[in-house]
């Protein structure tokens, strides 16, 4: 990709805990072009949320530490600059929508004040101006009777409305990159679709690039241009949405897809991925997915697979599997 807006290179994040050090994100690299939507997929604990926190400078200290790599935004390395300096990019260049809208809103401030704060503190707007803009934004994200609800507190809103408030805050200063960390996980299914539609609409309207983090392939399918699958802190597979879907090159991706029920398909037993994610404190030698993998052979236990081009579209589609070819062809080796 020439001149990506955001380029993450070999990002590594470690957490020191009482029991030992955990590498939550392990040499993750990806690019994000202007206006593009990248979906990061993975199970709980795969490192996708920590990756997002690292982009925003929100890795909880002192336990968490970005211990390597570069985050190039518009050509400058955010990790090389002090946090207080990169903090100023939050909201104006990079903005984030969090998973749980109730706990992510401050319970003691009115919703309007929490949105308006961005204009007051970051743009020097007056109180009345900030309030007016807050109402405008609430109206834009589809909160009914915005002019009245602007003075309500977060606990007086429903889950879907709270997430709309979070979205209003995120787009307030028109950032170029919007990071949405499981934005619909805490919501009812009917509301999920509305919130996703709103995000897609706003993204197009403001020509934002978006990083959509999810554990749910179904949520991502409608909006993502590219997807990146993470497993045990590393990138397992990355490519265009269609490529990854049609010529899946990693057994983990296959497993994720097989565990989604299809409405129109025949009624068959769902196939969950067997086993559980590895203990990141003591990652297995070789491929982290090996213990759960039906394609595994001897090499998988000794050599860690690097991201390699997957034959059909080698320039954009890559998977970290010794047996990517067999996975694509659906032939179990041996």
């Amino acid at each position: 990709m020439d001149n990506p807006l955001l380029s993450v290179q070999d990002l590594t994040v470690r957490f020191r805990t009482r029991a030992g050090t955990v590498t939550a994100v392990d040499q993750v690299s990806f690019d994000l072009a202007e206006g593009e939507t990248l979906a990061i997929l993975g199970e709980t604990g795969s490192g996708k949320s920590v990756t997002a926190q690292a982009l925003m400078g929100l890795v909880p200290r002192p336990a968490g530490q970005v211990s390597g790599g570069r985050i190039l935004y518009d050509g400058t390395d955010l990790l090389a600059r002090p946090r207080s300096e990169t903090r100023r990019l939050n909201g104006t260049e990079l903005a984030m929508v969090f998973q749980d809208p109730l706990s992510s809103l401050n319970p003691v401030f009115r919703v309007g004040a929490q949105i308006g704060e961005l204009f007051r503190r970051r743009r020097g707007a007056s109180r009345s101006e900030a309030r007016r803009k807050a109402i405008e934004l609430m109206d834009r994200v589809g909160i009914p009777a915005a002019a009245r609800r602007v003075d309500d507190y977060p606990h007086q809103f429903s889950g879907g409305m709270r997430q709309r408030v979070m979205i209003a805050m995120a787009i307030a200063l028109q950032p170029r990159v919007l990071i949405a960390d499981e934005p619909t996980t805490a919501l009812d299914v009917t509301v999920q679709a509305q919130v996703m539609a709103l995000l897609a609409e706003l993204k197009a309207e403001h020509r934002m690039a978006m990083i959509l983090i999810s554990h749910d392939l179904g949520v991502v399918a409608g909006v993502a241009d590219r997807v990146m699958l993470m497993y045990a802190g590393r990138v397992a597979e990355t490519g265009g949405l269609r490529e990854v879907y049609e010529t899946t090159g990693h057994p983990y991706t296959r497993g994720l897809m097989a565990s989604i029920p299809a409405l129109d398909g025949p009624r068959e037993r769902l196939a969950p991925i067997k086993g559980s994610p590895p203990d990141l404190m003591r990652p297995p030698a070789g491929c982290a997915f090996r213990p759960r993998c039906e394609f595994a052979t001897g090499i998988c236990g000794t050599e860690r697979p690097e991201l390699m081009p997957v034959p059909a579209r080698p320039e954009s589609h890559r998977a970290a599997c010794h047996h990517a070819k067999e996975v694509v062809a659906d032939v179990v080796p041996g």
Partner: protein
Amino acid sequence: MTAYLIRRTLFAVFVLWGAVTIVFLVLRLVPGDPAQLILGSDATRDEIAQLRERMGLNRPLVVQYGIYLSDVVRLDFGDSYRYHGDAMGLVMGKFPLTLQLAAVAMVIGLVLGISLGVVGALRVNRLADRVVSVFALLSQSMPSFWIGIMFILVFARQLHVFASGGHGGFDRLVLPGVTLALPVVAILIRLTRSGLLDVVHENYIQTARAKGLSERLVIFLHAIRNALIPIVTVAGLEFGKMFGGAVIVETVFSWPGVGRLLIDSISARDYNVVQAAILLIAGGFVLINLVVDVMYGYLDPRIRLGR
């Protein structure tokens, strides 16, 4: 809100009734006879019996209690045996001095307690935090009569910076004010520190950072406001307790407030003054509690008063 206030007022009346009843009984159960104390050791049995009759002390306890309660309901708190004036009037005359002392102590307690607590939280487990924690531990574990005496020895006797007692002038407020404040400082340090440490891990703090607000705003606007909720409750209760704590501090520093009057009146078995003073202190405590509860709802919009 109105229903809530009515309910709270009824509850307050109940609490005050309990307080006066306990004081009434305890005063009469402890040895010591006001008539004897007024007349002195030279008085004859007859003289004492006569005085007891005039004071109504010879009647059965239940009758005395009934008369007392019906007087209190009509806001008649009786006269002081020693000063021959209205007991409540006497107490109210001293009250401004106690209030002054408690207010100074409360300001010291709030300012020092919250600011040191914030320092502890922001520098958690580092040198500043350790120093603050040790200071809080010391302030809490040293009894105020001992601290008061030490202050007098060091600052009045040795260094001659402050007067050892009496009232008048701001400098005479410093030592008793600090003495009365120290336990509150200790509690508020602990509460602010732990409260803030809890709050900074909340998701909305992460949101505030994601908005690009400076760390100063994140802590002093978004975090403090939430940490303040339990602080207000405890600070209010401590302020109420100060009127009780003032009894010791006023005695040590010869501060002529309600506390000293109370101690003197107990020694003299000046029943009506003791009862009036306790009623006032209890009333203050109840009132402060009500104010705290109302403020609580203002600080935390999730708490709805009136249910």
